[in-house]
């Protein structure tokens, strides 16, 4: 499809409203040009103001024009059309109900268990349980077997509110993709979002509610719950404790609490990611707005991160990664620069041009030193009053700051030069991350506000006036809850909804003991977790893909959530359960189900956005597209004098004291991802360790302490201790002990997460940030000692250094790249004895991978595993190197071991034109197709494995075992085969497999193009890794199409083929001529020289 030139102001309306042409309908998927070549103003949903592009424009109407007009082609579908009624299946009276009725004594309880066992046996013999999947006896009109249906919805894995599209086949979700039009996700999905289906289909989801009888939780039915629970809640002091959300959910809880006679203050919200509440609290102090500013770093010339992990976890990782990509796109001789100050090595630090290692716990001090440097510069921005207020703060802390450089470990000139650069252009200071949740977490955000005021970020890269972000939690709720629940007679009942404070709040807070005193505890969870153990009633609720809901990630921007599948188990949506409980208490709310509440509440959105459309049509249109926006504006608040509330906090511990930091894991987050094998197996971005918990310590320090890699260490603090294996991690400050959270779950959470790794939070004494009450999870002084034991950590990469090899990873400086910008070369012009194998072909598929942009997040690995039914193999097999990932991330360190340069190289089948694997296969199981894809014929493979030996990129994977769906290594688990993609063969033992450029997607696009009589357009095939990549590092397309993005990238002198030599130095290399090219890693810093890192073996 040729994209019409758009008007200079980026007005999308005219384009959207024109009549659909034949060319449009040729592609049922939206076709996009290269995000990197296309002006930012043309990206979907972007509008231009005088200042530059802003994601959320002023005239945010219904984004697709009149709601009657359907989006061309079956883009995304509203759930109502396919599943008219989502009535829960009638449940039989459960065992617990009988238990209540019988008023059991011990003897009859035993009888009842016996009867239950007999009944279970009898039914087990009769037939398999009915699976509530759309029956095709009466085929739904919209559903064609073999043709996927797409639903737009909103991801519920964290509070960021990314828009996703769920691909369903025959009623089953089979893949999560980013919604390309959604301004938060912009088509990207993180690894947690990609792994959603393993949560939906998880075989260990509860099949029915549990109720506590005596000390035992027994199976119950929903009727039991209604009766037993309803009567217990009526007229009591009921509280709800839940996770973060920006949508209607929290308001619903408040309304419900009011309706049943409790008060709305008894809603407590908690997210272990303290960034939300600390940023909101700091902005409340500085600006009087308890919200988060919307960062827009796309135009930033410099981003300074201080302890920040905005690319790892942050507040909205996909949104930030997409913005990062725009900023880091090299054009017109330059790109945005990143300077990072941190004590551990994050993905953000790995992407930074310059990285400064600071002492752990000095993020606040470092920020204030930067503020000091900024204030000292002549060009400091910000209003006079703000500058005065900041000067006041600086003066009050002058002594501490002057001594600060030594404490931090970074000299003053660094801060001065960074400050000068910050003032030069659009810039931003991003402070704090999950590594810096200490007592000063809110003070740090306050310092960040000061820095951003001085460098003029507010209004240019940070927005509080338009499109600011609501905090998904209320500040101080955990503290309030602890006070209320501990008070005598404080709360009569607590309902935990999709949150796991029993695990995510450090044990030293005594939350479990406090909750144990509450007479009625209800745990409503879509997956078993530790909080269930505290509860008298455990209610199995819907997964988010089975639920209705919404999020409002930006004020005035609503993202809708709709079910993509009928409930797979006998679960209920938590809100529906609350509604019926209210009805049962004779205090009904005027809604029969949560969808009605939602529709009612959305009337306000309708009124705000577009009243010309009939409401139901509007609602359907929003579901179809997944979101709608009408941004609110407010006057930019002015900076208040914060000198009274600011303090530099507690003194930093002295040099040489080891302090423990426990950041959130980018895959497992606070532990919510731990039950998904694919997340366990994707491996940590920087260490590449899968499955376990490791202790990260600086390699030199490890040597000094006399430990070795894989030694099991005992980490002791005043609060507790844990044991885990040691990983010498380059780039850490010598005093830092970094142990990621996420693992160490109770066995009740399932066979994947149970007994896997340790929970470092046990070592944290009860301490909280005084301003927000958030638990401190950084800066605990610990003692390390060896236990003498050794535990092999399953790290994918055994060798972390590039070993001076020149044509694998290539790096250039910005200056070099600028001198060569626009130059082209023909890398396929290689002398060759053989004639081309195929002539007159339309397509030659190729891929380009940008090493400047890849952060190593692992979303591509998860997406690939989900799309291509890749088996998970477990820790033991990874130790042998037998992982099955079709795409892997090779992470190389270069330079100083204390502060290495990091390169992450995604490595998938290079689809060599001269494939070494093809010639050696005795049975033609692997061969070239005319379009350049090296394809595997699994049925033909006899497993000689010669191809894998011959492959110089080592991307071929062999099925050493039948990777059963119920075994991962030594863990017996039951993975649900319903999550398999029906388009891709499941491989058996003894055959080779590897990346095939998502051949099924290529074929699908070709079919569609053929039906329409056109060629496959650029962007019509999005392979799974490319689709999900939050940084757009991967581009796929047709190399024979001169206009395709991938052709342009292949021509650039900045691109190279791995292992194919360096022109002029070492020409042609091994001459495999891959169809995958890499874009050199561009950095402002000189590439580290020949010096090897000390830690090249870990």
């Amino acid at each position, binding site marked *: 499809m040729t994209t019409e030139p758009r008007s200079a102001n980026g007005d999308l309306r005219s384009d959207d409203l024109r009549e659909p042409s034949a060319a449009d309908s040729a592609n049922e998927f939206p076709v996009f040009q290269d995000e990197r070549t296309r002006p930012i103003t043309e990206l979907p949903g972007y509008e231009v103001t005088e200042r530059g592009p802003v994601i959320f424009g002023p005239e945010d109407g219904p984004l697709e024009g009149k709601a009657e007009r359907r989006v061309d082609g079956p883009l995304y579908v509203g759930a109502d059309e396919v599943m008219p009624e989502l009535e829960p299946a009638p449940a039989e009276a459960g065992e617990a109900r009988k238990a209540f009725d019988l008023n059991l004594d011990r003897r009859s309880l035993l009888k009842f268990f016996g009867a239950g066992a007999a009944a279970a046996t009898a039914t087990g013999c009769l037939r398999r349980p009915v699976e509530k999947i759309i029956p095709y006896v009466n085929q739904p009109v919209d559903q064609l077997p073999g043709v996927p249906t797409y639903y737009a919805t909103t991801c519920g894995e964290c509070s960021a509110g990314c828009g996703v599209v769920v691909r369903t086949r025959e009623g089953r979700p089979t893949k999560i993709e980013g919604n390309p039009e959604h301004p938060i996700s912009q088509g990207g999905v993180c690894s947690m979002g990609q792994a959603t289906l393993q949560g939906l289909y998880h075989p260990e989801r509860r099949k029915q509610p549990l109720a506590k009888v005596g000390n035992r939780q027994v199976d119950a039915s929903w009727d039991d719950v209604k009766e037993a629970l309803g009567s217990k809640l009526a007229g009591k002091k009921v509280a709800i404790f839940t996770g973060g959300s920006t949508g209607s959910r929290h308001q619903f809880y408040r309304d419900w609490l009011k309706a049943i006679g409790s008060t709305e203050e008894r809603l407590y919200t908690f997210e272990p990611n303290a960034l939300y509440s600390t940023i909101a609290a700091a902005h409340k102090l500085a600006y009087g707005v308890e919200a988060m500013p919307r960062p827009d770093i796309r135009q930033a010339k410099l981003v300074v991160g201080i302890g920040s992990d905005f690319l790892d976890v942050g507040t909205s990782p996909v949104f930030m990664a997409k913005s990062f990509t725009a900023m880091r796109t090299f054009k017109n001789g330059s790109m945005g620069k990143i300077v990072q100050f941190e004590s551990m090595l994050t993905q953000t630090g790995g992407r930074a041009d310059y990285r400064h290692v600071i002492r752990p716990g000095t993020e606040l001090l470092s920020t204030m030193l930067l503020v000091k440097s900024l204030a000292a510069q002549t060009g400091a921005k910000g209003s006079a009053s703000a500058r005065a207020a900041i000067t006041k703060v600086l003066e009050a802390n002058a002594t501490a700051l002057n001594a600060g450089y030594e404490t931090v470990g970074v000299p003053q000139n660094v801060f001065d030069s960074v400050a000068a650069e910050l003032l030069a252009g659009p810039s931003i200071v991003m402070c704090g991350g999950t590594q810096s949740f200490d007592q000063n977490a809110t003070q740090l955000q306050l310092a960040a506000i000061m820095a951003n005021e001085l460098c003029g970020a507010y209004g240019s890269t940070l927005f509080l006036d338009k499109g600011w972000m609501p905090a998904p939690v209320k500040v101080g709720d955990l503290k309030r809850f602890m006070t209320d629940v501990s008070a005598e007679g404080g709360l009569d009942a607590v309902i935990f909804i999709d949150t796991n404070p029993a695990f995510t709040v450090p044990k030293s807070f005594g939350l479990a003991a406090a909750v144990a005193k509450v007479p009625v505890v209800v745990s409503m969870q879509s997956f078993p977790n530790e909080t269930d153990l505290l509860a008298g009633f455990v209610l199995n609720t819907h997964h988010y893909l089975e639920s209705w809901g919404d999020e409002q990630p930006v004020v005035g921007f609503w993202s809708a959530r709709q079910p993509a599948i009928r409930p797979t188990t006998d679960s209920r949506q938590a809100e529906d359960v609350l509604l019926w409980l209210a009805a049962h208490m004779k205090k009904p709310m005027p809604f029969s189900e949560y969808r009605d509440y939602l529709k009612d509440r959305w009337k306000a959105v309708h009124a705000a956005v577009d009243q010309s459309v009939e409401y139901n049509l509007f609602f359907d249109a929003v579901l179809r597209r997944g979101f709608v926006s009408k941004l609110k504006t407010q006057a930019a608040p002015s900076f208040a004098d914060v000198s009274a509330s600011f303090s530099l906090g507690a003194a930093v511990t002295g040099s040489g004291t080891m302090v423990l930091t426990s950041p959130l894991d980018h895959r497992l987050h606070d532990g919510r991802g731990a039950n998904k094998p694919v997340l366990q197996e994707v491996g940590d971005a920087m260490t590449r360790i899968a499955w376990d918990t490791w202790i990260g310590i600086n390699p030199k320090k490890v040597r000094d302490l006399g430990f070795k890699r894989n030694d099991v260490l005992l980490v002791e603090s005043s609060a507790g201790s844990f044991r885990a294996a040691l990983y010498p991690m380059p780039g850490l400050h010598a005093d830092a002990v970094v142990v990621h959270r996420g693992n160490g779950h109770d066995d009740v959470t399932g066979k994947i997460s149970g007994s896997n790794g340790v929970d470092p939070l046990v070592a944290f004494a009860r301490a909280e940030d005084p301003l927000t009450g958030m638990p401190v999870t950084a800066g605990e002084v610990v003692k390390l000692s060896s236990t003498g034991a050794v535990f092999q950590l399953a790290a994918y*990469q*055994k*060798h*972390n*250094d*590039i*070993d001076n*090899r*020149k044509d*694998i990873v290539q790096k250039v400086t910005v200056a070099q790249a600028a001198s060569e910008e626009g130059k082209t070369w023909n890398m396929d012009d290689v002398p060759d004895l053989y004639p081309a194998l195929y002539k007159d072909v339309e397509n030659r598929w190729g891929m380009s991978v940008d090493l400047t942009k890849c952060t190593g997040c692992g979303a591509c690995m998860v997406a690939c595993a989900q799309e291509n039914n890749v088996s998970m193999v477990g820790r033991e*097999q990874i130790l*042998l*190197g*037998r992982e099955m990932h079709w795409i*892997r991330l*090779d*992470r*190389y360190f270069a330079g100083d071991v204390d502060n290495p340069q990091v390169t992450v*190289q995604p*490595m998938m089948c290079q689809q060599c034109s001269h494939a*070494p694997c093809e*010639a*050696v*296969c*005795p*049975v*033609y199981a692997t061969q070239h197709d005319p379009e350049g894809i090296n394809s595997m014929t699994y049925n*033909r*493979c*006899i*497993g*000689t*494995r*010669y191809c*894998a*030996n*011959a492959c*110089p*990129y*080592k991307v071929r*994977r*062999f*099925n*050493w*075992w*039948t990777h059963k769906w119920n075994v991962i290594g030594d863990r017996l688990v039951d993975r649900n085969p319903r999550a398999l993609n029906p388009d891709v063969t499941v491989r058996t*033992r*003894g*055959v*080779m497999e590897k990346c095939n450029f998502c051949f099924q997607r290529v074929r699908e696009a070709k079919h569609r193009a053929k039906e329409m009589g056109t060629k496959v357009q650029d962007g019509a095939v999005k392979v799974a890794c490319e689709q999900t990549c939050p940084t757009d590092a991967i581009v796929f397309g047709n190399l024979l199409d001169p206009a395709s993005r991938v052709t342009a990238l292949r021509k650039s002198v900045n691109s190279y083929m*791995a*292992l194919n030599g360096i022109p002029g130095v*070492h020409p042609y290399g*091994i001459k*495999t001529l891959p169809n995958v090219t890499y874009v050199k890693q561009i950095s402002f810093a000189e590439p580290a020289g020949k010096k090897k890192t000390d830690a090249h073996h870990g």
Partner: protein
Amino acid sequence: MAGDAAGVVSVDGSREPVWERSISDVNEQILVNLRSPHPSFYVAFVIAVLCLLTGVGFVAAHTIYGLGLWNFAPPSMWAVDITNFVFWVGIGHAGTLISAILFLFRAKWRNSVNRSAEAMTIFAVICAAIFPLIHMGRMWLGAYWALPLPNTNNMWINFRSPLVWDVFAISTYFTVSLLFWYMGLVPDLASIRDRTKGFKRLVYGFMSFGWRGTAKQWHHYEAGYGFLAALATPLVLSVHSIVSWDFAMSIQPGWHTTIFPPYFVAGAILSGCAMVYTLLVPVRYMFRLEQFILKEHLEACIKLTLLTSTIVFYAYAIEFFVAWYSGAPYEWAIFEKRAIGPYAFYFWTMVFCNCIFPLAFWSKSIRNNIPVTFVICVLINVGMWFERYNIIISSLAEDFLPGSWGHYEPGLWEMVITVGSFGLFFTFFLIFCKFFPIVSLSEIKLIMPKPLRGGGKHHH
């Protein structure tokens, strides 16, 4: 020494055996194995069968559960499986060399050892052929999909693949060796037939195809034997060349070199001769064949070992030189690591066993010192196994991309299957020793002094 009266080295040091027995005495002495071997034979046989059973058990287990049982650690997709394959093919080389090439060169010393050397070849090739079969992911299909069999899907094999060449090379070699061996056996089997009764006579009669020893039969036999020898001769060079192409045809550094075919052939002959020696010494003892397999014969075998050891030594050196001289960084990195990297132990074991220890053979007294030479030959066999292991593992484990480097060490099951293959070999070999003439009767008779053959006294 049972045979001290039969064959002695003459006092003047001439190597000419002095025959004092008749042709029937030769039969008696050689076929002693059919009656009463030394008790050590039975001990050896029981051990061999036990080893074989272990291997069979493992093959059954891995067929049921999958190749994951082995300790394969990618990127080393081949390991002890192919090591054993190349090792056994190498062992199989000396047999044909001794029987065919030396036959054509009329080297008389071969006549006393060729029978057992050929038998060794047959059994070694059987052992070798098992490994490519069981190392396949789907051996139940691979066993016949690797053959050019017509099928309804018109699927054909890939003639570009060295593995296909391997299938042809090994099967041809096995067939020709088997024919050659069996053809040589026919007159001897007839001799046995004539000396047995009842059921045995029936069996040996069947196996000897009605050999009567007529002049016409001898005429055809000689022609056919010579023809087969000529046919087998190029195979000696081709088989291990093709096996070496299994490696050399890929672009893997450490494998992709043109020196591989001659280097592999020399290595194969080295290991084959060492194995022949290793086998002959105990066999000579168990079956009291000292008067037929003379020290001179053993020494000739050792001389060949010394020659090939020197060639191998040269190949090792030139490999390093070429890797350095090529300027290919990945190639040189492999060789650097072989010498001082994680697999240096295997490399230096290989160098010492194959190149350094055999230097002792320059001394005639050591050549003729059977215990010392026997130990060195066993070490050469160890060294040759390590050579294959070294070539395969050190090239695969750390090749192009440092990010995918790995480390492999053999696990328990690899040991078991290796022991199992030795069990198979020795079981077969010991059965052969018990039921077949270990030394070729007819050829010994051929080189006997004329009077005993019925002619004038004549030193051949």
